[in-house]
């Protein structure tokens, strides 16, 4: 589905990513992990046309995305939940959902709003409230719901669990797994919380200082004591074999 080959990218003259490769198929969760400032968000921004590509290629179902603008990329079936400002704070919840489904026609929009609300029933109770007045957890639910509005085949989530209470985190994780297992959606997940992320992932990519230093199965990553202890802040012994 998504194929990233030898990607070099950044912002203007600032070179952030060096030779990144990644594949994500349908019904697959791929985790991008790494320390702060390693380039994880830039990676997602690059896929979505929000950063400059210096070399390499990004293709989605055979379609080259390198020269596409963000509003064009959203039409090919990729959704993106940015890390910051992931909702329209000045608009109502209903208007947020409408804007998230901007590319749909009126009939599709209505059906998709109903579908999304059935996945996140809590949203129904505050459809007319301004999104800026929602709590952190409610905002994040809304943001994830918005990424589903475009009926994507691939969604990219940038730290969706950041700052959420453990109960909400667990609910969101269940929703992400539901997307993969029941709807066949591919998910690229960027998270600081490596342990939680790796538990549900099919593949993992460890990025450090803009370079991919590991790409493969999550349990293979956890077998490398050095990587786990150095970059993920986990104790390798405690996690070895957790997916077997």
């Amino acid at each position: 589905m998504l194929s990233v080959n030898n990607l070099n990218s950044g912002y203007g003259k600032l070179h952030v990513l060096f030779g990144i490769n990644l594949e994500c198929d349908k019904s697959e969760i791929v985790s991008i992990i790494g320390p702060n400032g390693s380039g994880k968000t830039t990676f997602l921004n690059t896929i979505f046309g929000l950063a400059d590509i210096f070399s390499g290629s990004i293709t989605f179902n055979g379609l080259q995305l390198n020269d596409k603008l963000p509003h064009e990329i959203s039409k090919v079936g990729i959704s993106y939940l940015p890390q910051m400002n992931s909702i329209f704070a000045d608009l109502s919840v209903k208007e947020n959902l409408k804007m998230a489904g901007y590319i749909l026609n009126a009939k599709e929009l209505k059906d998709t709003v109903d579908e999304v609300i059935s996945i996140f029933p809590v949203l129904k109770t505050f459809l007319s409230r301004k999104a800026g007045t929602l709590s952190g957890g409610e905002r994040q639910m809304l943001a994830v719901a918005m990424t589903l509005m475009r009926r994507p085949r691939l969604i990219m989530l940038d730290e969706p669990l950041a700052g959420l209470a453990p109960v909400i985190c667990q609910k969101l994780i269940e929703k992400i797994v539901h997307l993969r297992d029941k709807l066949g959606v591919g998910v690229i997940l960027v998270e600081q919380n490596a342990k939680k992320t790796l538990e549900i992932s099919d593949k993992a990519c460890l990025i450090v200082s803009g370079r991919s230093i590991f790409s493969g199965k999550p349990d293979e990553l956890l077998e490398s004591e050095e990587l786990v202890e150095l970059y993920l802040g986990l104790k390798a012994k405690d996690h070895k074999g957790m997916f077997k």
Partner: protein
Amino acid sequence: MIDPILMDAMTYSSLLGIMTFGLTFVRRTTGVWNIAHAGLVTIGAYVVFTCVSFLGGNPYIYFLLAFILSAVVAVVEYLLIIEPLRRRKASTTMLLVSTLAFDLVMLSILNIYADYLQNMFSLPSKNFLLRKLDFILFDEPGIFWVSLSFLMIFLVVLYVILNYTKIGIALRSCVCNPMLASVSGINVMHTNLLSWFISGGLAGVAGGLLPLWMQGKPVVGDSLLALMFCVSIVGGVEEIYGTVLGGFLVGFTQILVTSALSIVLGAAVIPYKTLIPMAILVLTLLFAPSGIAKVNWKKILTIVKFGGASKRKI
């Protein structure tokens, strides 16, 4: 027949409101305070004046042309200045200053154009009034009815567009979070262009109305710029109906207070009449910085009803 002072106040307030709609609209949907809005108003005035001078007929029939020409100039302004500066991550202050520069360029061109009309065709292009061409309805000049009607029509149309249409909500979303808007599939540049087109067009229509009520000149828009800002800020940019509230508050206060003061203190106070809206502006910024459309009147009434001050912000 309506009292002349009241008629004056209503016409003036309506014109202020119509002129300010575009300013508020583009601020609300793209986040830019467009000083060149004044020049766009003047273009509207000159389009109507030129057409009436060369083609004759009623000034109102040229309003569509005034709308289109001012709208096109606004789009040019956006493409030449705002969009390239935005790509360079220019601050809102920088954008505001750039619109001032564009306004000065337009002012120069309009002066050259007025000189050309005056020298080549002996037209009174530096000081013109089209009142004589206006129609009369129920003993009142057409400008009174037209300005009031336009104000109400524009208010309803803009309110419906911004709150109940997909493109209107998209316009609001682009100023709220442009990155998320583009990620959602909205072409931010196209929506911005639409905003500038509508705003410029409204300025053109407002400009077309002006010479039917006051002297038209190359600086007619710029001479009213401070008042337009005053109306927009006093009314509040968050709600489009704030412009009508602001227009009527500023217009009525200016006309009625000046009229009352001139009776008591003499005609010497008339040149200082613009101090009144500025005083309202200062009071608004001090006590209701988001404009009167955003004031929580219910809370104020509760405080007044039960007495005592609330420590919470109104």
